[in-house]
Every structure is written in C-alpha cells, then in structure tokens.
C-alpha cells in the first residue's frame, strides 16, 4: 500500500474532527494514481482509504478496520476512529471543538491530553439511563474525577480523568462500543504554575 506525505493546508469543513476537504483531496489523489488502497499517517492523524469493490464485506462501526479509519494519535487532535465509508451509520457529530487535524502539531504544545479507554466495552456518558452526563464539552474536571462509564462483562467501570483541565472534545457517543486504547476525551490540561 502507498504511504505518502503531502504538505498540509486544510479547509475548515469537518465532521467530528475529520476534515472533509482533506479527505476529498486524498480521494482525488487515489483516483488520479489508480490506487485501490491508501494509508497515510502523520502526527496525530491516521487515515486508511479503500475502494468499495476491493473489500469483501461491509464493516461495522468502531470495532473494525473500516473503510476509512481516522485515529487520534498521541497529540489527540485528530478525529475519532470514525467510519466515513459507505457502510457508515454513525459519524461523531461535531463537538464544537475548534481544533482540527491540521493543527495537530500545534496542539501538542497546547497540552490537550487524550483520555483513552483502558478496556473493551460499551461507553456510557451518564451514570444512569437518561441521566445527566458526567461531563460535557467545556466542563472543568479534576484529576480523579469520573468522566464516563465503560460497561464490560456486566460491570460498570468508572473511567477517571488522569489530568485536571477542561474537556474540549468527546470522541465517542453514548452507548457506543469502544476498543482498548480508543480515544474517549480530549482534555486541555491546566497549566501548572
């Protein structure tokens, strides 16, 4: 498969941190060079594109190597591991975070910390069905504060923040299955003074 780095200049339209214009450009690039499959990675951003006829079956959301995978890297400003292919049912709706993938490099210096899922399970934003979520974008959290619940084997596991700061991004939706290491929250850490 081709791996290629191209200079970045990004537009602003995006869904859940996925820059659509950039994806469009990558798709054009694939068409132009007759590529069946394309994988591209740079700081905080990974994408894999595959033409629909080169895969045998559809993939389900979040638990797969889907048509298009965009995974948050260590700096965390890229979008969620969202499926953007034809089989996609859900794509994270915008969470009003102003950052986008193109700013991943800069983001690293902004202390945005990504809280990742330590286990495989089902993500719940609130402690009870229909209840108020633990946190929302803009919430201030302390270190050790509960951010969400991940249900695994009928057990409710509270996931705590490992930093103090402001929630700037929620990468997953209520009720969604998550895998090990999947990005859950972006938290802009309070600067230590």
């Amino acid at each position: 498969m081709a791996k290629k780095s191209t200079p970045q200049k990004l537009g602003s339209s995006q869904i859940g941190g996925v820059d659509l214009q950039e994806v469009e450009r990558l798709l054009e690039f694939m068409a132009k060079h007759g590529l069946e499959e394309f994988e591209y990675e740079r700081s905080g951003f990974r994408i894999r594109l595959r033409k629909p006829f080169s895969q045998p079956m559809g993939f389900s959301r979040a638990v797969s190597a889907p048509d298009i995978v965009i995974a948050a890297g260590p700096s965390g400003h890229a979008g969620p591991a969202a499926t953007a292919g034809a089989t996609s049912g859900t794509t994270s709706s915008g969470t009003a975070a102003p950052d986008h993938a193109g700013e991943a490099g800069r983001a690293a210096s902004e202390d945005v910390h990504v809280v990742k899922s330590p286990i495989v399970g089902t993500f719940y934003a609130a402690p009870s069905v229909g209840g108020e979520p633990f946190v929302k974008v803009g919430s201030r959290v302390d270190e050790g504060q509960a951010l969400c619940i991940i249900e695994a084997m009928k057990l409710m596991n509270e996931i705590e923040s490992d930093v103090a700061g402001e929630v700037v991004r929620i990468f997953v939706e209520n009720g969604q299955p998550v895998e090990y290491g999947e990005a859950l929250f972006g938290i802009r850490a309070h600067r230590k003074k």
Partner: protein
Amino acid sequence: MFRKILIANRGEIALRILSACRELNVRTVAVYSEADRHALHVRFADEAICIGPPRSSESYLNIPQVISAAEIANVDAIHPGYGFLSENANFAEVCEASHITFIGPTPDAIRLMGEKDKAKEAMAAAGIPVIPGSAGVVPDEESAKEIARDIGYPVMIKAAEGGGGRGMRIVRSAKELIPAFRTARTEAEQAFGSPNVYMEKLIERPRHIEFQVLGDKHGNVVHLGERECSLQRRHQKVLEESPSAAVDASTRQKLGKQVVDALKKIGYSSAGTMEFLREDGGNLYFIEMNARIQVEHPVTEMVTGIDLVKSQIRVAAGEKLSSVLPPVEFRGHAIECRINAEDPETFTPSAGRVTAFRVPGGPGIRVDTACYADAVIPPYYDSLIAKLISYGHDRAEAIVRMQRALDGFVVEGVKTTIPLHKRILADPDFVAGKFDTHFLERMPALEAKAKAK
C-alpha cells in the same frame, strides 16, 4: 450454524480459523493486541477489536477483555485456536455463562485433561494402556523392590514434586535399585522439600505418536489416524508427519478403537489429540491428551482430506459427525515443518522485520502462515511464522517435495529454522524412518555443517 465467530488468537491459526469461517459463510471478529495492529488476521476479519497492550497476559490471555469484545461484537461463538485460552477451563465456563459457544470440549473435559495424573487414571480406567508404574508415591524400599519387579527393568525413579532431572534416577537392575532409591529421595528432599518419589517403567528410545480424534455433542467419536511427532527439541515439536513409520495398520486399528471407546466414555465432544510414547519394542503408552486443535493438524488433513477446523466448528454448532465427515480413509503421506523465527543453531528467537518473504508452491505443497514481506515479528509471542506442509503418494515423495519446497522458501530479515529442516530431510536415518525423541539432540551442530558448505 453460527452467525458470527470471534477468533481469540493470532498468527497462522487465526487465519486458518478465518478461512474455515469464510468457507462456512460465518462472519468473523478478530481480536488483537497493540503489537498486532498490522497483522493479517486483523485485516482479513470482518471486524477487529483491539483488546490490550502487547503482553499476552493483558490481551490474548485477558478473559474479561476477550469476553467484552465478544459481547460488543455480538458473536455467538469463540474459537480459541491453540495456546492462549484454548485449554483454560475457566474461560470455557465464562463463555458458557455468557451464552457464547466455546468451540472446544466441555470445561469438565478440559479440566480433566489439564490434570495429567487424573487424565492418566481416567484413561487407564477406560482401557487405554498407560506407562506401568507405582500408583503414586513409593513408600519404602520393600515396596520399591516389589514394584520394580512387577513392571520390569529398566525403571525410572522420579521426584513426586519436582522436575528438571533432580531426584531422577534410571535403574537397570535389582542390585542398583536400593542405592538409587535412597539418593533419589535425598535429592528430592533437598531440591523440593519432599522426599517423595514415584517409579515408572523407563521408555527407551521413545517415539512420540499421537492420535487425532473428533467427537460431537451426540456421543459420537472418531479417530483420524496417527501423527509421528518424535522430532522435538526441548519438548517442542519441530517436524511432524502422518502416517507414522512405526505404526502398522493393525496397531492403528486396535489402538484407534481403544481411543474412540475411551473418549466416548468420558463424553469428549470436539477435536483433540491423544499422545502416546512408543517404546522400542512396539508398545504404546498414553501420556496425555491435548484438548484443542493442534499446530500439526494439517498433516492429518492432507492424508484424510478432512478439514479439521471446519469440522470442529460444525460439531460445536451441534451437527453430528455422520453429517460432517465423509468415510474416513487414509491416503498418501504428509510432512509438516514448523518454520520458526529462530536462530537455527542456538534456537534463540529472532524477532524483527521480515524484508523478503517468498513462499513455495507447486504440487503437494501447502503453506499456513500469517507472515508477509514487511511484516514485523513481535517479540511477545511464539516464534512460529509458517507451517510448510508437503504431501506425496508415499513418504519418499513427501520428502522430496519438502526438500524442494524448503529450497524455494525465502525469508530475509529474520533468522529461521529452514536450514535445520533441510538438514533433517537430508539425514539418512530420518529418510529411513529410524529416529526417536532424542534424534535432534544427537544432531551435530548446524553451524559447522553450514560453514563447510
């Protein structure tokens, strides 16, 4: 039939199970550790779920993670492959409690076979020959004499609590017995804190021979002939073949029937292997049972034409053996070489990036592998990177096909055991079928030969 199966394994066996599922039109879910993000089982499965960091204790062996993955992917069965959770009775129980079919024997059967002493007892009670010996600890010198006389010299005295050669004595005649018994007890006491020893018949120049079996959930069991697995290094099999040159048709039939009857008695309901040691004189004694699909299952598939993994899945789904299997016939000869990412001289694992990978083909050659050029062999798991299987109308043809396939197998970037296999296949004793489990220990250092070339 199942709708969707989670494959709780990695490497070639994960791909092997994936192939079986594809042919059965069952959807697949791969699980993987962070070290296997680019592994082929992840790419070829319908879905894939990361279940943890590289260390297998935190991923492939982590029962809560595997079960959670099965639940979020909504599968109706889990295939454990071999190794990892395949013979974990607790895992099989958790699957049951979670209403997921464990593709393997019942938890009780796994537990029984996991405790070797109990397995031996159960098999002896069911009429299978076991190595003659003391039933438990030998209490005193008088009993030692009596037992040794009953089972016949040479005998072996072994520490009950230990292993690794300490507290172990080989006794060839009655006059050596008492001194050997005393020193074995003293050694055992010093090494393991208990002077308890037991005694069994010494099997000289043993061959390791095993019977493949398959049972269903309706009380039916068949055997699919034997495999010769004597070529081992530190109890790890290196090369296997079927049939064994040391088993004739009448032995196969007689022991095969005993095995089938014994497993019907305990209600064995999946693929499994009964392992035996064959002594020089020709007697075979049961040593243990592997309650799983095995690495070397392809040689049996080649000589019977039966797809063992598909059959195992179908019986787990409740089908009867009579509808799964054609009449069992044995035809031709098959050999499997385990290609490990190891230094062929020192046998130390050789992890790293594979820079070139060229697989042989042609008549009678099968390669089961999850490796590819540019793949990285992680250091966290076992070193098997490919199984090279040859088939011929007889043993001689299987050997020459294997030789030319080994010559055409190119792996660069990591060291492999391919040179070791070339030497084995060229060895006159191997070609003549004359070997036992100590064959590889006697082989002179590889490197010297390689340099001389």
